[in-house]
């Protein structure tokens, strides 16, 4: 083990990222040197993820100890660059688990890429590193670094199958718009720094408790730009227009992973900045977030109604979900948001695993016609997709319902009853498009077209479905965990 030599270098705080980065480098080096079968690289990445996950358990224990004795400054490491609070550790853990599932779900794609498979695996690990840094950063510049490491890896992943023009287009679009959003985020950080003189989130909070800002215009503009930049990453309306094209064009095997990672990290970052950095300004940002939330839910649900491609539909449903998750932030609490993000990420990866099976792992596009009669052609696959869709729709006995109930209760308790009513109406609209897919699968008698479900896809789907149902019936352990994982 690494010995802790000096008190101000708390290596434990970044151990998972170190493991991930080494793992990514290891995959590339092994590939260059020995050109092993893709399976070997998969094993390396699996071991890397497992090591990283075990480090998060260590961090969780450390964070708990520090909280118990009240030495909170122990949790801040690298001169305030990163924190090791429960929030960060929880976020990391979810990211790592989803990365593992995402890799499994896209395994057929990785195999089909031949020698480029190593790149795909390394990119997945690198993206995870970046987003993992992002959720743990206390410094806004550090957060930006994490965001960029993650995002750039995702841009490349989107264009993995570069022979396909659709995938190329998706990657290009994602890259251009994504970079633009990152730039907006940095500009926001700069303005916030100009207004407060601080880059660290904890210091910004102290700044507001110590100083009464009479002219907060610069700070507010900076904050708004940060929200816009991150709003893009989580595809909240009106910054969502990239999502449908990217979800549709990028190879099916990676879309679930891409979408889940960006959303987990993005929402955790927004929450940390707003609830921990500038809680004193909530008079200003609460209405803004509530507005974004309402807009996302309505735009996402209504536009999803008219989609004829399952991936575009899932993209717009993601916009709506961004709105639902934002209601949790409007609620001013982190528990509901963390629970929601976790179960939604799982559903998303599961759903795209189905898409990858039905339309092929490197496909671009997944018209709803391909799902006709799926319940007859492959009953297990149809049932799994139905459960995941109903989970996303938020039917009781699935995790989606508990998640919605959690964030809506928080928002209602915080005085945003109107937002909850909008959210509930949007969920009713959303039922309609989830049901369209179920209609195609169950109420169409097409029997042609055998579907082959690969072993890895089976694993992912089993876990996603079991997770969705279990968290819907016995949500207590996960909610408790999320409740313990509050940010510093």
């Amino acid at each position, binding site marked *: 083990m690494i010995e802790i030599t000096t008190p101000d270098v708390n290596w434990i705080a970044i151990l998972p990222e170190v493991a991930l980065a080494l793992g990514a480098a290891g995959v590339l080096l092994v590939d260059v040197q020995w050109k092993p079968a893709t399976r070997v690289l998969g094993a390396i990445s699996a071991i890397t993820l497992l090591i990283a996950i075990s480090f998060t358990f260590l961090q969780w224990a450390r964070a708990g100890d520090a909280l118990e004795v009240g030495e909170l400054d122990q949790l801040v490491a690298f001169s305030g660059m990163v924190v090791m609070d429960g929030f960060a550790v929880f976020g990391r853990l979810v990211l790592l688990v989803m990365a593992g599932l995402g890799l499994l779900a896209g395994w057929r794609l990785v195999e089909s890429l031949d020698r480029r498979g190593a790149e795909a695996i390394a990119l997945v690990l690198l993206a995870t590193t970046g987003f993992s840094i992002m959720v743990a950063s206390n410094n806004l510049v550090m957060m930006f670094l994490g965001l960029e490491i993650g995002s750039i890896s995702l841009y490349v992943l989107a264009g993995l199958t570069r022979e396909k023009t659709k995938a190329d287009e998706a990657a290009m679009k994602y890259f251009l718009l994504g970079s633009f959003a990152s730039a907006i985020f940095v500009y926001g950080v700069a303005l916030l720094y100009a207004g407060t003189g601080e880059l660290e989130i904890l210091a910004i909070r102290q700044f507001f408790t110590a100083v009464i800002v009479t002219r907060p215009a610069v700070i507010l503009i900076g904050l708004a730009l940060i929200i816009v930049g991150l709003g893009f990453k989580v595809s909240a309306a009106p910054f969502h227009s990239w999502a449908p094209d990217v979800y549709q064009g990028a190879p099916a095997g990676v879309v679930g992973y891409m979408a889940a990672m960006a959303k987990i990290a993005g929402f955790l970052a927004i929450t940390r900045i707003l609830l921990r950095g500038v809680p004193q300004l909530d008079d200003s940002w609460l209405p803004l977030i509530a507005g974004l939330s309402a807009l996302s839910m309505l735009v996402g649900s209504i536009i999803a109604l008219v989609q004829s491609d399952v991936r575009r539909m899932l993209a717009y449903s993601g916009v709506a979900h961004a709105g639902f998750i934002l209601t949790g932030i409007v609620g001013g609490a982190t528990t509901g948001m963390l629970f929601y993000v976790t179960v939604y990420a799982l559903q998303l990866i599961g759903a795209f695993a189905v898409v990858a099976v039905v339309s092929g792992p490197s496909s671009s596009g997944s018209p709803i016609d391909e799902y006709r009669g799926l319940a007859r052609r492959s009953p297990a696959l149809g049932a799994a997709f139905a459960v995941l869709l109903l989970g996303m729709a938020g*039917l009781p*006995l699935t995790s989606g*319902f508990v998640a919605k*109930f959690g964030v*809506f209760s928080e928002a209602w308790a915080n005085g945003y009853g109107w937002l909850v009513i909008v959210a*509930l109406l949007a969920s009713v609209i959303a*039922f309609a498009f989830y049901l369209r897919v179920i*209609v195609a699968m169950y*109420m169409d008698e097409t029997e042609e077209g055998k579907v082959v479900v690969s072993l890895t896809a089976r694993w992912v789907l089993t876990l996603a479905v079991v997770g969705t149902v279990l968290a819907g019936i016995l949500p207590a352990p996960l909610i408790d965990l999320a*409740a313990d994982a509050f940010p510093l």
Partner: protein
Amino acid sequence: MLTWLIALPVIAAAIVALVPRRLKELHLPLGVALAVLPLALAGYVFWVFEPVAGYQFVSTAVWYEPWGISWSLGIDGISMPMVLLTAILVPIALAASTSITRRTKEFVVYTLLLEAGMIGVFLALDLFLFFVFFEAILIPMYFIIGIWGSDRRIYAAMKFFIFTAFGSALLLAGIIALGVTYADQFGSASFALSDLMNVQLSTGAERWLFAAFALAFAIKVPLFPVHTWLPDAHTEAPTAGSVLLAAVLLKLGTYGLLRFNLSLFPEASVDAAWIMGVLAVIGIIYGAVVAIVQPDLKRLVAYSSVSHLGFIVLGTFALTSGSLQGAVIQNVNHGLVTGALFLLVGMIYERRHTKQISEFGGLQKVMPVFAGFFLFMIFASIGLPGLNGFVGEFLILIGSYATLPALTIVAAIGVVLAAIYMLWAYERVFTGVADKEENKVLSDLSIREISLLTPLAILILVIGLYPNVLLDKIAPSTEAALDHIEEQTEFVIPEPGRLGDVLVAGGDEE
């Protein structure tokens, strides 16, 4: 024990699901046999049920403490008849589904899951749990209509789902609001009905919440003007789907109004009584008038439901002993009678593949047994003394007259209209000469079909002749509901309405 009432159908569904698909013939009989188990248990509960107020067989297990949600079940005089009705109708509806030849296994599984959900709704004493069941029911019903329905089944299934989901959304908003208010006032979270009844609400908040709950349940009932999903859903659904939809699912609405609106928002219930009454009466008259002109037998029965359920809502909000007891017992009556009518329509449809009234005529001579059952059910439906429909409607009308006299008089017209559309339909279908060739060769009911209808007919007769078999067990609970309203509000139940015993005796006279 009540947990078993919910668990048994789920276990039954799991067992049926495990039977391999190629043993096609086995699924339906197995489903029927297994559906008898919950019926036996429900019968036992009915047998040992004490005719006192309050919940019995209460079982509570904490689900998630910090949110105050629990798996809390109990049964009282208002829910007990509904549970029994559900348990009786599911095996009958399943046994009547021999015409479902494709994907039988899924059908049986969905029906059994539906039963678990329906029983759960009636037993839940925790609003969160109630909502879980209330919403979970939509899925199996959606599949039943959408997979085994007739031509426009997908449209009907979607309409059914979206309408009710819209209502559920409002209900959920109301439940969240109540839960948050409770947590504010008492410092701990709870969604138990008994706890939420203590929440102090401002008049405005109470009215909004009442409206949210009432709209959710009104869609389910369905009350005018949110009834439009019902004729489509009924017409397109397979026979078993129609039976359960009419007999049980609609009752979730009337049950909800009675259980939750009256007890959680007594003040608003008293204030809004006349509004609900007016809507109910519009439903009674409108449903009846539309039923008269329906060319389709199934649609006719569907619209008759709109009319009959109007009586139940009227009785609920008239807030007298007689009207409430009438409402509860009419829930059962309507379930039995309409369930039987849908079975009958299904049987003739299987023979002729049409439900158009104009296609029939003179069936009395060709199918005397069928005609006999049909006439019996029609008489029960229009409230012929001696049959159960009379007991319910009589209690409702006489009870409601005390508080809502004008509305009750208008509602009474509905009884006359019911006689018109039912008897006229009978006349067109059964009397005269069988002039169509297809009608001359129809076979009469088989032993199996008769054995499905007979239990319903016996129950209709028993309740009609001796309603106290149910009323004795219902009355303490409805009285308790009224006591609660009188305690919480300045509403005083007028003199004739409070004399429950007199009215029960009055019901006996026929």
